[in-house]
């Protein structure tokens, strides 16, 4: 079972839901796909061990062979190659690693070279029941998706994999959510929460992934999220109250299921609901 925890808006509680769900289940994998600022380990406190570098292929030019025909620059959809009157210039940070330029060059003047853009680390708890895989994109690197895809190669299909997605609705979110059995969208009952939830719903609907909503900080704001979900027939899977005790635990880096046993039950119920929706669709 592969569950993505996503949201449109940032700071709604994706990591809170992902980590607490994993702990409540007792045995799970967490994949921190928010590779620009991975933070699940703030709540797990594992010693992380490096697994591997994440590398992408970028072009390198043999200017001795280049005839300045400019086909590589014309082909590049990411504007990573410029043809000037007397030279070809490459911009590795704009390159998406498609390899098209090496194929189209009639002089074979472009070869591909590996470039490291981030790393994958792993940690686990004492009885190895909750495994964390964390991706970290190097500072200044623009492309998160290759790190996310490589992180997902570590998914163990025999257990429950929980993906902590980055916020928003851009490429890195698509990469995180693609291929998942279910998507939990975490939001908060504020105008921003609703605006960005609507965008996230458009994304998961288009990707044809079953989904439900968790309302965090419930009691804050108003009933607009509930109204929206009712109108759109979207299940509200859980309501986490806007509660001082939960906030205090969060501020200390303690997953609140550890101090509030009732929430362990609530998260297990959430998982049961997800399992039912997935099996109903003929999934796992």
């Amino acid at each position: 079972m592969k569950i993505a925890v996503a949201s449109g808006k940032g700071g709604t509680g994706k990591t809170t839901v992902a980590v607490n769900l994993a702990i409540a289940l007792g045995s799970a994998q967490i994949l921190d796909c928010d590779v620009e600022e991975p933070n699940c380990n703030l709540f797990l406190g594992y010693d992380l061990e490096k697994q591997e570098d994440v590398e992408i292929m970028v072009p390198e030019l043999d200017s001795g062979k280049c005839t300045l025909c400019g086909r590589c620059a014309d082909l590049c959809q990411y504007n990573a190659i410029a043809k000037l009157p007397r030279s070809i210039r490459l911009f590795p940070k704009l390159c998406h690693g498609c390899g098209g330029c090496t194929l189209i060059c009639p002089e074979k003047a472009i070869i591909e070279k590996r470039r490291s853009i981030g790393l994958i680390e792993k940690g686990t708890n004492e009885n190895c029941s909750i495994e964390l895989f964390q991706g970290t994109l190097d500072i200044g690197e623009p492309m998160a998706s290759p790190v996310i895809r490589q992180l997902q190669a570590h998914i163990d299909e025999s257990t429950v994999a929980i993906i902590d997605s980055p916020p928003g609705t851009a490429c890195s979110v698509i990469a995180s959510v693609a291929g998942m059995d279910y998507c939990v969208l975490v939001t908060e009952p504020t105008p921003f929460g609703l605006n960005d939830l609507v965008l996230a719903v458009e994304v998961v609907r288009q990707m044809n992934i079953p989904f439900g909503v968790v309302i965090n900080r419930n009691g804050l704001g108003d009933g607009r999220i509930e109204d929206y979900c009712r109108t759109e027939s979207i299940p509200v899977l859980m309501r986490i109250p806007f509660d001082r005790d939960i906030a205090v635990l969060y501020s200390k880096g303690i997953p609140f299921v550890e101090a509030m046993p009732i929430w362990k039950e609530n998260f297990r119920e959430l998982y049961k609901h997800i399992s039912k929706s997935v099996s109903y669709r003929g999934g796992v």
Partner: protein
Amino acid sequence: MKICVTAIKPSLEAPVDPHFGRCNYFLMVDPVTMDFKYINNRHVSASGGAGVQAAQETIGEGIDVLITGSVGPNAYSLLSSENVTIKSFCSGSVREAIEAYRSGSLENIDAANSPGKHGL
């Protein structure tokens, strides 16, 4: 001599567009005759690398001087490697920009003055 001015519309009376990579039009102006030709910026809403394309295109036109408001790091490196002089002007028309250039009152842009956007 050929001067490229970024503009909101393809006219000498149009306001100068303050963004090089994401301007609407590039006007190639002869500062003596004030004759000009223009190019539509096809990369105005590119997800990334608009500045690279803008530099490639205007350098290909054989410009000597660029007048605009801001230039990102990728475009700056291309323009400076081809010895294009970059002048700052962002409030007024294309005609006023050329006049200010001729009177010598425009300041150089000596480094990228926009953060640019490195793709997604």
